[in-house]
């Protein structure tokens, strides 16, 4: 197990190195001069003078050769400094910390909504395979998958805010402001998990030990929920883990529609503003989050079912 952990850690370092090089290069190959874009934005659309652009470039070290800029960047990251935003005196680390919790909170709430919907629906669908409940839940899952997030967001606002007047349309800070974004985010994911859990349950329900359990005269409820569900959840854990990593990226559309702060939004805004230090720092942090989530999922996977082995890992 420890060897496995070590191997994964080493590969993670390589992945992150690759990500850092790619991110760094990508932003420099993106059209649009950051100096001009940033200054133009600060001036409300007016044109900065050539001197101002030169001044900005030299202040920010943008005139140095790219390899020098990369080494400078990596050196400061290794010292725990992700750099400063071009726009203001805020540090990238601080901006990420400020936006991390709102995203985490939304991801957690969205995941809770998804599981609350998906687990019972997936199980019922499998148990009543071919029946009305199954078709109904499959249809709902299809709807959930195909509905664009922003559209569902507006729809929920119309129903819960405008017609029923029970929830606010947007904002951040209180529980009631979290409900609609969480439902919007959770629904799409619920659909994925429902379908996965259904097929996983169907497979497990066919296993011999289930027949054995039934033949022992155990109540169906115990068979389904204690014996079958537990094993059917294994692939679901992987998806939940990966999806959670994805959610931590920030569900940009949801953050924009519901006017919530968050990492996704920070990333998009920074890309459009050509605020490279934020883009680079954030992509690196997101890569770390992904690598760590994947790593944890693999470990959890192995923990839940010790029969699962990994290539190169001790059996």
């Amino acid at each position, binding site marked *: 197990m420890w060897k496995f952990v070590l191997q994964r850690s080493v590969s993670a370092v390589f992945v992150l190195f690759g990500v850092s090089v790619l991110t760094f290069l990508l932003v420099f190959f*993106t*059209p*649009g*001069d950051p100096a*001009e*874009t940033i*200054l*133009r934005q*600060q*001036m*409300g*659309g*007016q*044109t*900065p*003078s*050539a*001197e*101002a652009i030169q*001044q*900005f470039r030299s*202040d920010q070290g943008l005139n140095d050769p790219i390899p020098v800029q990369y080494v400078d960047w990596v050196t400061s990251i290794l010292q725990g400094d992700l750099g400063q*935003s071009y*726009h*203001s*005196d*805020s540090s990238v680390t601080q*901006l990420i910390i*400020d936006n991390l919790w709102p995203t985490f909170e939304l991801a957690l709430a969205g995941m809770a909504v998804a599981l609350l919907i998906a687990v019972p629906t997936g199980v019922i669908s499998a148990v009543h395979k071919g029946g009305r409940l199954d078709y109904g839940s499959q249809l709902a899952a299809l709807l959930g998958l195909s509905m664009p997030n922003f559209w569902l967001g*507006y729809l929920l*606002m*119309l129903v819960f*805010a*405008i017609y029923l*007047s*029970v*929830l*606010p*349309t*947007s*904002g*951040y*800070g*209180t529980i*009631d402001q979290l409900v609609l974004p969480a439902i919007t985010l959770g629904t799409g994911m619920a659909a994925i998990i429902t379908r996965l859990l259904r097929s996983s349950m169907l497979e497990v329900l066919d296993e011999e030990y289930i027949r054995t359990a039934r033949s022992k005269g155990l109540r169906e409820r115990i068979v389904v929920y204690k014996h079958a569900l537990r094993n059917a959840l294994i692939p679901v854990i992987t998806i939940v883990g990966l999806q959670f990593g994805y959610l931590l990226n920030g569900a940009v559309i949801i953050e*924009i*529609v*519901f*006017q919530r*702060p968050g990492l996704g939004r920070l990333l998009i805004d920074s890309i*459009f503003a*050509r605020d490279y230090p934020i883009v680079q720092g954030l992509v690196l942090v997101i890569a770390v989050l992904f690598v760590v989530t994947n790593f944890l999922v693999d470990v959890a996977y192995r923990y839940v079912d010790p029969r699962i082995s990994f290539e190169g890992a001790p059996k």
Partner: protein
Amino acid sequence: MTYDTSDKTRRTVLKTVGAAGVVGVAGCLGGDDSSESDNGDGNGGDDQEDRDRSDQNRVPHATIAINDDPTRDDWNHYGGVTPYWTNILEPLVWVSNEMELVPWLATEWEQTGERTWEFSLREGVQFHNGEEVTADEVVFSFENILDEYVWAPGWLHLESGNIEALDTHLVEFTTTDPFPTFPGTIAHNMVAIQHPDRDHTEDRVIGTGPFQVEEIEQHQEVRTSAFEDYWNDEPILEELTFRVIEDPNTRTLSLENREIDVALAPPRSRIASIESDDSLYLDRQSRPGAGYVGINIHKSPTDDVALRQALNHAISQETIVDTILEGVGDPGRGPISPIIYWSAHDEITDYEKDDDLGAELVSESGYDGETLEILVANDLVDGREMAQVIQGSLDGIGVNSDIQVLERAAYSEAERDGEAHLILKESGSNSGDADYIIYEGFHSEGDVNQRLYEEEGTGLHNLGGEVDDLIEQGFQTGDEDEKAAAYKEAQQHIADEAVTIPLYYSEFIAAAHENIDGANLGAVPQFSRWTDLEHWE
């Protein structure tokens, strides 16, 4: 938590308030400049007196949803809140809805030498911390901007050390070169006067405006209260909250849900539904901006004036305004909005929609079927749809075109590199200095032409020679009539040579609840005034 559900009963009551109210509502928030109110912004905003409010009570607070984060880090230098929209900070000079300069924290100014200006400060103006505004704070504020923003010295034509307090209420500015539009340039909220004790780490914004900061919720809202010792007309509201809701649909839904009272810039697609809702109304204000297609006059085949004139005859401005813009804005005739006093809107050549004439001009020109590139920025509202209408219209006279939508920064690069034939754009001034628009768009050394002009001696929309001279002449003169004459001639040349295809003149819109009165949308919307804002039950 409960949300107001009493809308329908209120709506019924308001309906019975009478037809006079409806009339008042139609133009309630702006446009009416008949009132010479002493708040000096040339837009009295008291045209709602027709409305019978006798059975209603005033509510002391209101919430305005804006589409830009007022607490963005960019504003740390002002104490953490944007000087735009919020009326917390004020500049020395204001700009009226007719784009005229209005004395504000300075009562008068005078050009005392080729490069020197003296500004006399209004006496008795207090900062929110109770201290009086003196020349020292003005010097501090300018020095601070020069220090904080690398672009500020070039924009203001000032350098650190060139601002001097001559006495308590007299400041002298020495510009780096002769800069006749200096007062117009500083008629801008970015050069707001603030107290040196402002501190964004403690949410302390210290300005002179009618509203002062009570609380800042980062990236969410700024709550302000009326400043009792305000030097000008005191605000009617006791509290005013500025909430950021960037998504335009969400902003409108929040208005319908009564979470906010005024929604700035609702989406055009929602205009019909706002207008059909009795409890809401729409306000419009002309801006000093225009949408047009800039034609690259140095690239073949659009270097042919006959082809450019043909393109002009292909477009119906009315169709674009009525269909794509849902009636927001007016059909354009030139690239300069008629609310700018030197706009030659009424006098310059008008290319009317005429496909036959257009096709004839195409065959007269050297056009051989080449595809014209139309460049559009992805963030230009309805830009894609407008480009499609233009493409269809060009088809009508036998000209092929291809639309290229680029993200803003990439668009900006492609435009300046002269990669496209036609560039869909919206120009506008965001300060009292509207000279900027004609200089940056059409002078050889202006913003869009500069790069190619320096590299290859070409440009994009520049005619060079006489037009450059006329623009310089207008720019350098302090005399309004002389300026108007020079710019008019320049605009006539631009029209004759068909350097642009005018599309529309911009309007800014806001949606509000019917029980909100008296907002003054500014010609530069970011400078809108809220002191006359009233909220009724």
